[in-house]
């Protein structure tokens, strides 16, 4: 059996004696007889570290990994700079708890303060929290914080990713929030329908930018419609796109949320990921989760602390704005190191690379007979349609390439990142030509 208990059985007996017990059964005699287990748990025998490693490696080996990935839809295969991995595996960052004791947690607190500052820089907004679980829960939390006594209805665009929509709906089921879906037209939020749907009861309007199909939404116009009825405008955005494209602040968003995974986290079968969340100053005291602030210590030195805690569950209990306590601090650190490593120049380059490559692949696929379903500008994802889509994905799979996500009806949602080389894209295009022939 493996164990991390340092005490030998002799030491354990000595401790039992020192504490006034004759045996472990004696120690646990406070547990009612009827629930005290008499048999060992139906678990396997423990293993040594070496055997454990072999058994877990065998599981990893049962998964297929690809030499190139053209699938996104909420999980994006970007290059992770080596310095990111090195910094975030530092044992102290890994094993510390939430930084309650500021005096010995300045390192963690400052790293979160820096993360918050970087999220503000990316989104153009005034305040950021220390993170939530992922992009979907960030969107759900944003929706709920907009709901007020007379503003009770949440409007969410149908062009938001299904993974996100489902979570927003589930949170709404929890709080009995009135939620309605804004229909899409030609792959984007229908602004005509939205105009009909908004009213004085609208709490917020939620869109995704770029949306699930990769298209750029008419965000400014949607923001204006939301604000015309005094509703909040919530944008779920891709952080990589913000290296290049208009910020949520520039298009009038009150809240910017999104999936932070592209900022240095592996696709990892879906997690851990990072939900980022930034808002205008006016919403500062409504944000859920931890927030780090700057202050001074007893001798006037700069210091960082968890702050605005009056919002939180351990103070407010049932009146708290959210129940969140553990967030994704190490993932926030990952994002911060990634953003520091990339810098403003690197963030622009990675966004340009993603967008250029997506357009190159889209052109090639179009020529091969897999035309674009939607018109309009897109960032790094796009949808094609063409007979033999399933066969195309199958052929690519045989070549060790994970093609786009099948959406049914011969449609595929493709994604390109800076990791996709021209060589690989040409291979995809050649395969598409073969299938179409």
């Amino acid at each position, binding site marked *: *059996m493996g164990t991390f208990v340092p005490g030998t059985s002799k030491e354990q007996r000595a*401790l039992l004696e*020192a504490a006034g*017990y004759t045996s*472990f059964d004696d*120690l646990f005699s406070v*547990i009612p007889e009827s*629930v005290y287990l008499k048999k*060992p*748990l*139906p678990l396997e*025998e423990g*293993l040594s570290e070496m055997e454990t*490693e072999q058994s877990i490696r*065998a*599981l*990893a080996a049962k*998964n297929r990994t*690809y030499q190139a990935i053209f*699938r996104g839809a*909420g*999980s994006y295969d970007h290059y992770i*700079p080596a310095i990111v991995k*090195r910094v975030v595996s*530092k044992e*102290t960052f890994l*094993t510390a708890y939430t930084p309650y*004791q500021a005096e*010995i*947690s300045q390192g*963690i607190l400052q*790293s*979160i*303060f*820096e993360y*918050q500052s970087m999220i503000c820089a*990316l989104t153009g907004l005034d305040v950021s929290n220390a993170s939530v679980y992922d992009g979907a829960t960030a969107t759900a939390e944003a929706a709920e914080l907009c709901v007020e006594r007379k503003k009770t209805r949440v409007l969410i665009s149908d062009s938001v990713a299904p993974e996100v929509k489902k979570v927003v709906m589930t949170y709404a*089921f929890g*709080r009995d929030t009135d939620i309605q879906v804004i229909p899409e037209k030609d792959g984007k939020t229908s602004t005509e329908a939205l105009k009909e749907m908004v009213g004085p009861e609208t709490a917020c309007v939620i869109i995704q930018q770029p949306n699930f199909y990769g298209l*750029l939404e008419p965000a400014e116009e949607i923001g204006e419609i939301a604000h015309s009825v005094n509703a909040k405008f919530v944008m779920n955005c891709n952080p990589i796109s913000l290296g290049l*494209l*208009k910020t949520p602040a*520039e298009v009038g968003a009150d809240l910017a949320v999104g999936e932070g995974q592209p900022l240095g986290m592996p696709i*990892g*079968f879906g997690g*851990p990921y990072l939900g980022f969340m930034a808002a205008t100053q006016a919403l500062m005291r409504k944000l859920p989760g931890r927030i780090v602030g700057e*202050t001074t210590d007893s001798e006037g*030195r700069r*210091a960082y*602390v968890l702050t605005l*805690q009056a919002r939180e569950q*351990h103070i407010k209990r049932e009146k708290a704005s959210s*129940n969140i*306590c*553990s967030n994704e*601090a*190490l993932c926030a*650190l990952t994002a911060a190191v990634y953003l520091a490593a990339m*810098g403003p*120049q690197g963030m622009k380059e990675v966004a340009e690379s993603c967008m250029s490559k997506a357009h190159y692949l889209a052109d090639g696929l179009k020529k091969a007979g897999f035309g674009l379903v939607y018109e309009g500008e897109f960032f790094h994802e796009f949808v094609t349609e063409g007979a033999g889509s399933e066969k195309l994905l199958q052929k690519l799979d045989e070549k060790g390439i994970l093609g786009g996500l099948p959406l049914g009806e011969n449609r595929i949602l493709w994604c390109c990142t800076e990791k996709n080389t021209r060589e690989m894209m040409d291979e995809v295009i050649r395969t598409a030509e073969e299938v179409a022939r």
Partner: protein
Amino acid sequence: MKLIFERGQEGRHLSILPKLDVPAYQPDEALLRAQAPALPEVSETEISRHYSALERRAHGVNNGFYPLGSCTMKYNPSIDEEMAALPGFTNVHPLQAEKTVQGALEVLEKMEEKLSAITGLKYFTFQPAAGAHGEFTGLLVIKAYHKDRGDEARKKIIVPDSAHGTNPASAAMCGYEVVNIPSASDGCVDLDALKAAVGPDTAGLMLTNPNTVGIFDKNIEEITRIVHEAGGLCYYDGANLNAVMGIARPGDMGFDVMHLNLHKTFATPHGGGGPGSGPVGVREDLGKFLPGFRPVRGEDGELHLAQPEKSLGSMRSFFGNFLVVVKALTYVTMLGREGVLEASRNAVLNANYMRKALEDIFPAAFPVTCMHEFVISLDKLHKETGVSALDAAKALLDYGIHPPTMYFPLIVHEALMIEPTETETKETMDEAIQAIREIYERAYSDPESLHHAPHHTVIGRPDEVTAARKPKLRYQKEV
């Protein structure tokens, strides 16, 4: 120390990306941001030194004793990290075809089997990303259950006054009214108060057992029976599961729904506040309400993803914090049936050893055998010397010891909650006992020095009032 924004120079950068190998696409100017984001412009050397300096200004389990009650700060094994970093896990897309992710699905299947064996509950979801997220999920299962039965009158969740703050906050997120019931004089559930609180409007009860004062509630079966007879369900907050693995099971105690904190009981690191993992388990007939997709083994021997019949929806994208589950599976595979029992036995043994060793100066608030943690009250010391629980906690920082949880649970005055965990040596505990004794003596001889503790940390006590009154929440370049 400098912020990373205060390091570097304009134009400084790393060489991460290759030259573009396709024609550069030029989007419409109107789509572009007006200014580049104000991110740091630093060299790799500067990044390396900056974060090494930050690391030195933090405290992890690797740096010293961390008896932070209710947080189970046990050692985080190295092998767990190595396994979660295997490319066969990290480079797998969550939307790959089922047949290409059999290993990942098997991780979830195996973990469900193991958690089921340990807890006595049948089915699990791994979507919840933290304990509080698990509470929210579990309560939604309860809500879905009552709704499915057409019993919409059940609007109340009963929570003892000793509960974690997340319990009432989670109940409120589910639209429930919270009914707080007082604890009895022994720190456990007051049965009369419970009987008076239950009724046809009771949706359920949320309970931690061992409870937040570290005591196993001897009336546990009576408690769950009272709630069940009133038509409610019982929710087990698994925050304290580290005390009872292999010793008693929530399912056998009468609980219907629970969450576990893999980042406590199953040794996955806390990461400075996440990522955690808070899987939720339910008894067999409630499995149909679980969120997301579950792996189910088909007749072909392969694992397939199936959505439970009356699934309440989805709590998070994809499968939750999967790589954290890999770490936990590595841990529990290594421990096996004897190892988990050994862990809980020693967690409880260590807590009672420390409780006993401090009894003459700080008797436990409830002086009986505790489980994996115990609560002392510094009320007497505070009255006699003016030294508070906060002062004592801050003084411990100078010994390189992370202080116990302070001022929780709310039912104990000047509380300190100590949880040594099973991975500490007797030597470490003895040093901590010695440190606490010295602080006790100093409280009488030199209380003033304790009011200003700590003295040897990189900062002294921070001004939290100003931080909240004049919030400065991001760096802004001075112009």
